[in-house]
């Protein structure tokens, strides 16, 4: 037997109480993506000519790479 259906309202004006899931969905998946090739340099390491949409999907991996390359220890949550 299926669970009863549910409806939940999440008001963005609730600030701190807004679910992280909603926030991540919006800031990572919606909004303008700039086209073009940019050179991003982090901690002295160039990420050469990567489209920003590519960076968007792999930012945490990029961070780990940068920290590993620069010798700066990565902070953990």
């Amino acid at each position: 037997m299926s669970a009863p259906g549910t409806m939940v309202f999440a008001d963005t004006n609730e600030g701190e109480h807004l679910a992280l899931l909603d926030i991540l969905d919006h800031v990572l998946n919606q909004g303008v993506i700039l086209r073009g090739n940019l050179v991003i340099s982090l901690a002295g390491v160039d990420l050469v000519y990567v489209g920003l949409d590519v960076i968007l999907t792999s930012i945490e991996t990029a961070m780990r790479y940068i920290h590993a390359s620069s010798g700066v220890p990565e902070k953990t949550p």
Partner: protein
Amino acid sequence: MSILLYCVTERTELPNLGSGVADLPVLSVEHGELAVLFSPDAWAEGWTGAPLKQSARQFHQVLHRVFESRAIIPFRFPTLMQEAQELATHMRANVPEYMAQLQKFRSSVQMDISIAYSDSARASGQASGAEYLRDRRKRSEELDRIANQLYTYADSVPRDWRTRPAQHGLKIFALLDRDSVEAFNRNLQRFAVPAGLSIRISGPWPVTAFLELRQHD
């Protein structure tokens, strides 16, 4: 010096911008009738080591402070530029496009509706390929039917709709006037959600699913 972009908005009477990702200052730079919000020194050590969820929340808070009183066009997080000159070049070519979209959606907000099958309803066991495809088609038809029912319940409050498939269901975006959010929620509260489904309604959000932005290089 890299800069982190937050959003584009009309330049008049900006609210207090406060701080943003990694507690960096949020500044604005004017391009024509527009203002672009950004943080300088965006690759400061404080951010590169911070958890993504913390940075995303801080990014959202900046957008929300501005969006409370005006339309914005948000950039995806993280949108970075090497220097302010690159931003100036981009804006020189695109001010009319941004302006047209801000004017079009000046008094609008977006509500998001996520329809998903619950865990127990998703469990399909060891079905054959044919059964799996039949099940998917049946669910797709059911989701379309529910979406149509929601449109009916929402009545004429939304001016437009968009849908896109989601991992375990369907995502619907509604475009409505800023002062119609309460009426929209009230209308949808009357909908009886079928067993095995969950519906999550969030907003108001800046309009993103309805933007038609043609960028010029």
